[in-house]
């Protein structure tokens, strides 16, 4: 690679990464449950993608390639504790990646819609999301803070997510009608 084309490559990478990162993040978050660990892994994927960018074949999907690199980083993460079996199988990985890639065009609209939808939630539901997503609390820890039971917290959290998913769909439809 010449020095001049290096800058070009870097700009291309920045652009592709912005497009492909949500899928990588979703994959890693589905595979690594602690938020802090998942964020560390995403960061490592970003560095690997940057370092190995000259191997990327522009004919192919960038997301597919980035997800393939992400899988190795997820395996590394589990290897430390000897739990590689928890990584998605090759087949599941491919199916999951296809499914994420199919959602690609909607992704940025979903992220924007989520902002609106979180705002619409009752305070109590938002508090639950804060505990789970801002503090990374487990169901047990949330139950303790909210003087509830882990089972009840799980159900509520599941419902809040359902509400958000519905709200996002509504917002996307509104967007489509505009």
């Amino acid at each position, binding site marked *: *690679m*010449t*020095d*001049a084309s*290096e*800058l070009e490559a*870097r700009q291309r990478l*920045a652009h592709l*990464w*912005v497009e492909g*990162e*949500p899928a990588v993040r*979703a994959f890693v*978050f*589905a595979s*690594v*449950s*602690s*938020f802090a*660990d*998942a*964020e*560390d892994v*995403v*960061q490592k994927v*970003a*560095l690997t993608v*940057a370092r190995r960018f000259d191997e990327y074949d522009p004919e192919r999907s960038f997301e597919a390639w980035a997800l393939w690199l992400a899988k190795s980083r997820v395996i590394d993460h589990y290897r430390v504790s000897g*739990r590689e*079996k*928890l990584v998605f*199988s090759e087949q*599941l990985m491919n*199916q*999951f990646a296809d*499914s*994420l890639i*199919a*959602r690609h065009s909607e992704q*940025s*609209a*979903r*992220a*924007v819609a989520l*902002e*609106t939808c*979180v705002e619409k939630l009752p305070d109590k539901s938002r508090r639950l*999301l*804060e505990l*789970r*997503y*801002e503090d990374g609390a487990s*169901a047990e820890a949330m139950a303790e803070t909210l003087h509830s039971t882990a089972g009840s917290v*799980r*159900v509520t959290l*599941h419902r809040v*997510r*359902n509400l*958000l*998913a519905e709200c996002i769909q509504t917002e996307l439809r509104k967007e489509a009608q505009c």
Partner: protein
Amino acid sequence: MLSEERRRELDRLLDGDLSDEDRVKIQASLESDPEAIDWLADRALLHSNLRRTMRRRGTETRTQTKPYPSPRRPVVARSRSHSWMAVAAMIVVVLGIVFLLRPTSGQTFATLEETRSALWESGELSTADGSRLGPGTLRLVEGLATLRFDSGAEVILEAPANLTLVDAMNCELSKGTMVSDIPDSAHGFRIKTPSADVVDHGTRFAVSVHESTGETHTQVMEGLVQVEYAASEKVVELKTGQRNTVAGQHLGVATEGVDQEPRTVPIMPLDYGPGWILIPTVKDAYTGRVRSHESEILLYLKNTHVNENTDRVSYLGFDLANLGSTKIEDAELLLHFAPTGWGLASHLPDAEFSVFGLVGNVPEWDESILYGEFPGKPNAIHLGSFTVPQGVQKGRFQIRSEALAQFLRQHSGSEISLKVVRDTQATEGGDLVHGFASRRHPFLPAPTLAIRLSDK
């Protein structure tokens, strides 16, 4: 339609709320359930977006009640009054990258990737290759060290240098030179020096600090950098190819000329004893070019396996007219290397260079061949080679050989032409461009022949 139970199970998978055994079982069951995979993909996107949204909201809430610890870097702290609907989704994503690239766990935020010929003064940080580094000071006495911050910023420290690490986006350089390569993830990377703050808004730049005066020299190879004068609010923006010096009470202006690297250590004058004569080049130039990477004062050397047009080969002309038929006993060719600021040292192993004497039908050439091509392909005799260790970019290198002395004897009384090439090819693209001082260099000696004449 997925059952409610199946959906709850998948939510628990995302929450890490399952035993390893259950997790493996559910993952296996997914393979034959495309509907569940689609649902999980939706949910995983929601899950990861929620993490980002809730953390950002948390940061905002905190900003409203107390000042953010680093108000000069308001990357994440956005006021809620900004309508997020209006903000392009891409910005959401980019902010997210910046956010998540900040250290989230542990005390360390950088890695000492590699050192070359490094000698360290004792300090509080580990200096073994691969060490993880947290806050503290590195004191590099000799050699080169490459550090990678978790923000993605990569810096090469050139001895003698003292660098204090603050966090993944901030460091303090109190002396020495630092060449930085900053990807988008580390946009806003800040280097504090005694006289200025250098803030990166682009990609590659070098900063040198003179210990005795605290002077700060900044030069930008690519991109945009801000130099903030420590003593006031003044700021100078430097674009590709510009440089700036902050000294004492003076915040300098941006000037063109990235290739004139700042003097970081004093250069010893050439000193050969009696009996030796020194002959500098009467003409010198290099061929090959990458646009906007040229130098007027350094002669570049590069050997890529990718693209021949970007190879750089240097030619030196010496006038031996005054030597007459004097007997040449010994001869040496001296070249003073200096950093070119182009390419990565890590992509190139120890590099071997060869010097050839042009013989036979040597065409007339002058310095107009600079950046172009050498006219013709005359025969060349190998006169000697030398090796520049990986990571070393400055210092005096020479060949001293009987072949050189023999060549000079044969051509004494006339003009001679030498060719310098790098034999070693890069292991990877974007590797280091070597350079040594031409006769136009403001303070380094020109390529010089040192010749010892017989006293008989």
